[in-house]
């Protein structure tokens, strides 16, 4: 990296708190255990709806009791919003972010979700059309896409910007990146940023099945081991993904603010970029992805060779993985960086994916190990990828990691993180 390029880089932002609710664990110890063992949470989910020929779909659900979450608004919570609150609570506790330790007007909430509230709205509509029951008075505020942002802001009394981002599978990566920009620009000192998604309801599952992107498991739905291994990112015989649900939250703050309140820094957010392919509503574009990865590297002041781990978008679809392999090769060269997609074990988390996969990258940095790309014996040889197959790989000197999110609609978002 040239000195001119380094001068264009932004200052890093500190990560001082982490919270997660996910199919592979609701705390960092259990998350790490499944992540580095490559243990999949994908299970068969029975679905009986008109026009759906398959009796079961692959799903990765979180072991989470939404009824136990107290809403600061006192209105009913969408399950995804309850997950968001639980993750934000855990991140704030981890960061020691308590009232009095920050200026409320300089606390922002930046949250991503692809279709926040969709599950609640589906169930509400079902009660009207199928059960002939009335709409509830809280239907709007439960289902509105900014409900997670609003509830988190209420919980912490945030008076700075509170913004919901909806750009499909890039939503939470964008939310985290935009929070980073707000801190860098001096608009706020500290942010709770992340994303959530929970819509494993019949209508949403059927909608995804109708796109033919879910891994087909009908032929072996009773074989739990085979179902758990159904998503094979970057394999020659890849066949789609499982839908998952999750939330992940980070407390981000300026290094000066973290130092002033004595908060331990867990990692640094070093770079971010987002752009759009402007090409197609669903088909990815290698050029757009490569531009986003290169821009994130420039923002971090790093060269491609500095990156020791890439948590790829890796949806395991035929078209998606092929295009992504091409963009990775453009940026890193053939076999230029250790790669894995953790969607194999936690499913496609949609709007929460960017946040959970950034967390996977941070845990890789903390452990000095790259999580295994589970379920895939070897990468499609045509891809030229250094795919981490078989087992987790220890990487000496692992210092910087990248997480990519490439969304329907063409939005690309890339985050770069560094060891503290």
């Amino acid at each position, binding site marked *: 990296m040239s000195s001119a390029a380094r001068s264009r880089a932004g200052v890093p932002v500190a990560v001082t708190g982490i919270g997660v609710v996910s199919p592979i664990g609701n705390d960092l110890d259990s998350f790490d255990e499944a992540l580095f063992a490559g243990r999949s949470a994908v299970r068969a989910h029975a679905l009986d709806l008109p026009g759906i020929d398959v009796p079961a779909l692959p799903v990765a659900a979180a072991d989470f009791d939404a*009824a136990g979450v107290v809403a600061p608004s*006192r*209105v*009913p919570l969408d399950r995804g919003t309850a997950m968001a609150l639980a993750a934000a609570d855990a991140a704030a506790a981890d960061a020691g972010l308590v009232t009095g330790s920050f200026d409320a007007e300089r606390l922002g909430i930046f949250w991503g979700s692809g279709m926040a509230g969709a599950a609640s709205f589906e169930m509400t509509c079902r009660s009207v059309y199928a059960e002939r*029951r*009335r709409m*509830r*008075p*809280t239907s709007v*505020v439960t289902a509105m896409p900014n409900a997670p942002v609003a509830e988190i802001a209420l919980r912490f009394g945030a008076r700075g910007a509170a913004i919901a981002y909806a750009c499909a599978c890039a939503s939470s990566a964008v939310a985290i990146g935009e929070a980073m920009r707000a801190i860098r620009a001096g608009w706020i000192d500290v942010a709770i940023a992340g994303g959530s998604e929970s819509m494993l309801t019949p209508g949403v599952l059927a909608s995804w099945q109708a796109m033919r992107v879910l891994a087909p498991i009908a032929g072996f739905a009773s074989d739990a081991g085979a179902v758990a291994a159904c998503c094979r990112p970057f394999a020659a015989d890849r066949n789609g993904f499982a839908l998952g649900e999750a939330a992940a939250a980070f407390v981000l703050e300026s290094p000066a603010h973290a130092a002033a309140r004595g908060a331990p820094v867990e990692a640094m957010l070093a770079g971010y970029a987002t752009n759009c392919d402007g090409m197609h509503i669903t088909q990815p574009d290698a050029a757009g992805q490569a531009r986003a990865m290169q821009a994130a590297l420039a923002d971090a002041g790093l060269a491609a060779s500095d990156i020791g781990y890439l948590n790829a978008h890796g949806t395991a679809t035929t078209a998606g993985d092929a295009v992504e392999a091409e963009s990775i090769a453009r940026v890193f060269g053939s076999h230029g960086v250790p790669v894995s997609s953790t969607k194999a074990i936690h499913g496609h988390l949609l709007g929460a994916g960017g946040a959970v996969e950034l967390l996977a990258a941070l845990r890789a940095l903390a452990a000095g190990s790259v999580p295994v790309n589970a379920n895939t014996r070897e990468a499609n040889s045509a891809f030229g990828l250094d795919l981490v197959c078989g087992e987790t790989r220890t990487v000496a000197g692992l210092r910087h990691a990248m997480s990519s999110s490439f969304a329907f609609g063409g939005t690309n978002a890339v985050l770069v993180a560094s060891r503290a």
Partner: protein
Amino acid sequence: MNPSTFDAIAAVLTEQFHLEAGSIRPDVALDQLGLDSLALMEFVFAVEDRLGIRIPEDRLDPRQAGVTLEQLALLLDEASGAKASGDVVSS
């Protein structure tokens, strides 16, 4: 007041609105529960759904000051009796 009606009210308040059981007494007014007007409407809907009955809108505005949980229970009992005699459409 039918005790089972009040039990249903208390169950909704503790299970769905996370209120302390000790704070739920017949003489407590709805506007003293710490719920805003929207949440109060949701609360009454939830109780009605739990009991499978509906209070006519002209008999109760949950946002009106001073309405107690006992008065709510009596209105529900009244609606239940009316439903049994076929006067009110259930929810």
